[in-house]
């Protein structure tokens, strides 16, 4: 029998607001334990939460780019559970009236993944288990999160990966999260079940937690898919439970049987009031959204003449895009700018983080100057490349490395004379060439370029060299 995967995702995204969701403590990753804390986020009795306006706005932005409807009347709720990472013994979240509902994202195959809901909630503290004791750091407690819940629409691990990459890029593009998986600002739980291919009924699902990289998620999903098929085919049953992914041996193991929803005893958060959003407010937020990756991609291809592959590489990094557009402003050939960025400049950006932050030692203005010397003053590509290397090393402008002579180039008469001299001086090359070794001309071109310090037009030089050699025949 062939089996089909039925999978849904719950993705937690930490919002990059200045402050926590219910108090004015700063949101900061790392740092000494319990130093970004106050009586509200460590849950002292008698304290009252006050909702950060920006968290609501960010969540609505996320909802809009994932094609959600925005609820006019959202509410906050208490989700009760007893565990030391939550000092109040409840998490303030949203239950039946989340901010955003009924959205979707479209995969490259054209398949739509339904977004059930996006709600806001507070993050929990961090636990360190050691020698049977538990050490708690509440710096992360109260950091604002959105939880994005999908319909069980995924049919393969690669669809999950594509969705998460899209989600990450969308969130970064609208600037609401840095989505760094290694720092836990994007975390994912997977709900997975299997059913006979073609069946409409849902099987019993298991939830997999503890995954903080795309490749872990892909591996865990593949492992869990086959584990469930093996269980069913050997006559056993899949148990509804929470499982943990172990990256060491690439398996999943049972953590605990799944609590039913009512065990959380959700009820309305009495310390917070309703969140009422009008249609006008939603439209005002929509109007301020930046250009989204798909639109940008299409524009780079159609108006800048970039290839699909090059445009995709740029669009992955919103800050690189800003740099690219600033450098290409007013130029006739933006493709040259993109070539410099994806080639020489990317080679100086060693880590993903360098690319994310666009840590480029040459300013966009300086790159534009260099490119306009090529467009307007006939600077040759090879000289421009050499200058860019020096600019990247020193951070200084192009003019510092390009002489007046470089811009002048070499006129055809002068070039012909140099070519003729090269032909005279190399009878062996000439006879090779005339004897049918067409590649022999390359060594002469190299000589001519050295002679002219790279200022000559290599194509013209080749033409002239061939002409001179033919005269010898």
């Amino acid at each position: 029998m062939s089996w089909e995967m039925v999978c849904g995702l719950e993705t937690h995204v930490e919002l990059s607001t200045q402050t926590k969701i219910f108090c004015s403590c700063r949101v900061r990753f790392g740092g000494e334990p319990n130093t970004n804390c106050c009586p509200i986020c460590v849950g002292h009795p008698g304290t009252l939460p006050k909702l950060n306006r920006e968290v609501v706005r960010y969540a609505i932005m996320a909802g809009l780019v994932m094609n959600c409807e925005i609820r006019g009347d959202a509410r906050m709720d208490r989700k009760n559970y007893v565990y030391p990472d939550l000092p109040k013994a409840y998490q303030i979240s949203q239950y039946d009236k989340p901010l955003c509902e009924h959205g979707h994202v479209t995969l490259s195959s054209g398949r739509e993944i339904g977004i059930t809901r996006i709600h806001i909630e507070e993050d929990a503290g961090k636990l360190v288990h050691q020698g049977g004791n538990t050490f708690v750091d509440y710096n992360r407690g109260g950091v604002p999160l959105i939880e994005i819940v999908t319909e069980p629409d995924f049919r393969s691990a690669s669809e999950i990966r594509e969705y998460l990459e899209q989600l990450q890029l969308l969130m970064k593009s609208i600037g609401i999260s840095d989505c760094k998986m290694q720092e836990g600002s994007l975390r994912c739980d997977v709900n997975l079940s299997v059913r006979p291919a073609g069946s409409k009924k849902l099987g019993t699902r298991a939830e997999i937690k503890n995954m903080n990289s795309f490749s872990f998620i892909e591996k865990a999903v593949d492992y869990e898919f086959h584990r469930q098929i093996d269980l069913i085919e050997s006559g056993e049953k899949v148990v509804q439970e929470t499982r943990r992914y172990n990256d060491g041996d690439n398996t999943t193991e049972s953590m605990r049987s799944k609590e039913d929803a009512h065990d959380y005893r959700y009820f309305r958060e009495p310390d917070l009031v309703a969140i009422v959003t009008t249609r006008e407010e939603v439209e005002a937020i929509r109007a301020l959204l930046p250009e989204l990756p798909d639109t940008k991609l299409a524009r780079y291809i159609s108006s800048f003449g970039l290839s699909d592959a090059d445009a995709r590489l740029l669009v992955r990094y919103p800050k690189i895009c800003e740099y690219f557009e600033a450098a290409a402003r007013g130029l006739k050939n933006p493709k040259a700018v993109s070539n410099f960025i994806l080639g020489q400049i990317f080679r100086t950006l060693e880590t993903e983080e360098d690319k994310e932050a666009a840590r480029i030692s040459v300013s966009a203005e300086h790159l534009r100057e260099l490119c306009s010397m090529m467009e307007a003053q006939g600077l040759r590509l090879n000289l421009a490349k050499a200058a860019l290397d020096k600019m990247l090393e020193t951070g200084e402008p192009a003019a510092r490395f390009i002489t007046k002579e470089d811009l002048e180039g070499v006129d055809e008469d002068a070039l012909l004379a140099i070519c003729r001299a090269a032909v005279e001086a190399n009878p062996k090359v000439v006879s090779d060439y005339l004897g049918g070794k067409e590649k022999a001309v390359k060594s002469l071109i190299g000589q001519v370029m050295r002679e002219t310090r790279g200022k000559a037009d290599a194509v013209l030089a080749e033409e002239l060299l061939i002409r001179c050699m033919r005269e010898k025949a």
Partner: protein
Amino acid sequence: MITREEILDLAVLAKLFVSEEELDALTEEMSNIISFADTINNAGTEAEFDGINRLSNVFREDVPAPSYPQEEILRNAGGGEDGFFLVRRRG
């Protein structure tokens, strides 16, 4: 009507130990509480708890204020350990 098993489930959730002797009394008391709540439900009010204070959109601006010093935060937890709150193993 509430059952003894439900009382035991609730006790587990509330982290309470309930003895056999307490169980019958608690089952009866909980049943009374729930039927009292049913009486209120049947009062047929239109008012929704959600809107009881008629307030909405009470927000704080996203402006940081200083956090508390670590010692201050840990003071009520016996000073913690190495800057952390310490939850000792039970038993």
